[in-house]
């Protein structure tokens, strides 16, 4: 008798419990979660934490953000001069040539009387614009071709052969050839650099893709009938976010380097467009006169700060984006 009663009560209790409490939503509680082994790990938060814990990187990041903002709002600030206008002396009406830096011309004037301060920032804008276009192109084309190259098996051989051919030619020679046969302009420069810059990226993505391609979860995905395009975009590309960021960051120093190189050998942008390469080249012609060396030193400092910052930022970020470095 007693046992029967007890069992009945227990069954009642369970029924009640199941209806009321079993399916209640659980509130997220970090302490509880820790105890149960749940982790609220977020990839991006960890990446950011690791990145920002590097003090040099944090400093450079702030420096570059402010420099970028400044570069783009500089022409709209009060009292700014035009980068291409030739300034004349109000008394003699002659151009103010090779004027030393002072209150009026903060970085001095160049050999035909243009304001170097305005030219440096205008040049930075031009060079950054080219770099960003090249970087985005490199990321988009490099990743598309690289992902296909690694994922689609029959494409492997032809693309590898094409890669071997292009990779065997010195890059500077491709650059020289391309810019030599086209008229000097921004488009020429961008096309010339873009023509080969994607190839290393594609190669890298291909290797990464081949490593990830045959993992179990991809096999499962394929067995369930997921189309290739979806596997590539959903299962593979998330691995590449850090690579994309690194590519764009590193394309800035390398593109500025190419631009300076091309300008130096006489295939750069037309002299009417201020760019960092043109400024270095103009400054170079005056180095024999020590009092005019400021025309080389100012652009050189700006170039060095920008290229070193982006190089370091790109590398620190790519280390931070590696989950192995997350604690």
């Amino acid at each position: 008798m007693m046992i029967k009663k007890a069992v009945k009560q227990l069954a009642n209790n369970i029924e009640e419990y199941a209806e009321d409490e079993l399916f209640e939503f659980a509130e997220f509680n970090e302490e509880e979660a820790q105890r149960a082994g749940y982790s609220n790990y977020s990839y991006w938060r960890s990446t950011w934490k690791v990145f920002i814990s590097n003090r040099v990187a944090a400093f450079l990041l702030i420096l570059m953000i402010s420099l970028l903002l400044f570069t783009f709002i500089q022409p709209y600030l009060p009292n700014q001069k035009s980068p291409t206008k030739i300034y004349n002396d109000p008394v003699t009406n002659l151009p103010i040539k090779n004027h030393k830096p002072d209150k009026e011309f903060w970085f001095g004037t160049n050999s035909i009387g243009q304001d170097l301060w305005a030219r440096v920032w205008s040049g930075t804008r031009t060079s950054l614009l080219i770099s960003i276009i090249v970087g985005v192109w490199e990321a988009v084309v490099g990743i598309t071709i690289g992902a296909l190259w690694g994922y689609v098996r029959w494409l492997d051989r032809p693309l590898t052969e094409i890669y071997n051919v292009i990779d065997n030619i010195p890059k500077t020679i491709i650059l020289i050839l391309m810019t030599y046969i086209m008229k000097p302009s921004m488009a020429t420069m961008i096309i010339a650099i873009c023509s080969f810059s994607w190839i290393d990226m594609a190669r890298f993505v291909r290797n990464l893709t081949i490593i990830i391609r045959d993992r179990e979860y991809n096999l499962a995905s394929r067995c369930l009938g997921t189309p290739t395009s979806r596997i590539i975009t959903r299962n593979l590309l998330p691995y590449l976010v850090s690579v994309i960021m690194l590519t764009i960051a590193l394309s800035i120093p390398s593109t500025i380097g190419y631009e300076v190189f091309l300008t130096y050998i006489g295939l750069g942008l037309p002299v009417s467009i201020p760019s960092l390469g043109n400024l270095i080249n103009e400054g170079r012609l005056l180095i024999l006169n020590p009092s005019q060396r400021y025309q080389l030193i100012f652009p050189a400092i700006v170039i060095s700060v920008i290229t070193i910052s982006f190089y370091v930022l790109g590398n620190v970020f790519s280390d931070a984006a590696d989950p192995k470095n997350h604690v």
Partner: protein
Amino acid sequence: MLKYSIKRLLQSLLTLFIIITIVFLLMRLLPEEGYFGDAYDKMDEAQREAILKNMGLRDPLHIQLINFYKKLFKGDLGQSITFRPKVPVMEIIKEKVPYSLYFGLASIAISLLVGIGMGILMAMNKSGFWDKFGTAYVVIIRAVPAAVYYLFIQLYLTGLFKVPMLFDIDKPKTWILPAISMSLGGIASYAMWMRRYMVDELNKDYVKLARAKGLDNKKIMVRHIFRNAFVPLAQYLPATILFTISGSIYIESLYSIPGMGGLLVEAIKRQDNTLVQALVLIYSSIGIVGLFLGDILMALFDPRINLQGKGGAR
């Protein structure tokens, strides 16, 4: 090994063939005025046509290409147009080759010696002063455009060491700075890779075993780690050659060294199409040969590389 070498050689030849053809076709895209130099304005239409026809430029494209190859095999790359009119370009280039060769070899030797030494120093002194110093050097050299530091070296170091700013064949003192400047990039990449490979090796089991046996650190570094870390480094030899090529273009014209790099800059400035074409071909052949040698070296050094393996990629 032999099979691999032959396959790699054929690949290089194919690349060379493709490049020569592309260069030839691209050069045909240039405006025809380029073939006359300064004489363009003095001639009328009929004279120009006659000259173009005489040069074979009115033939169908494939015949032009075949003729171009025929001449190429005889070592004839055409005549200079504006740089030294009517002089065969091979003659001009021949005078320049020794300078480029000496400076190029010197700079490759310096890059190898100093770069590897620096890499070992950095790895042995991991996170110490030399490591940080070396890393800073590598970052600066790899990030800042080469022209900038080349210019500053020429500007300030020539003054500091009291040597003339320009190259002078009779003054050996003036050879030093250009050779060193040319090797800066190579030093940076060797130091970086050497350090990375040595640090990778440091954590391997055989190193732990050697430590456990009580070998001293120096011996482990030189006898064990260095040897293993050196193998993958062989593949960067061609990269150094490529570095030296672009370095030589800057350095030779900065210091007015009468080499091929300076000649290329000059030819571009004077719009001398045949000379540019010849130099582009020579430089790309050097690059291809360099990469070929690098791959063969790599295969010789490292018995672990499976040459029969599929994949085809380097």
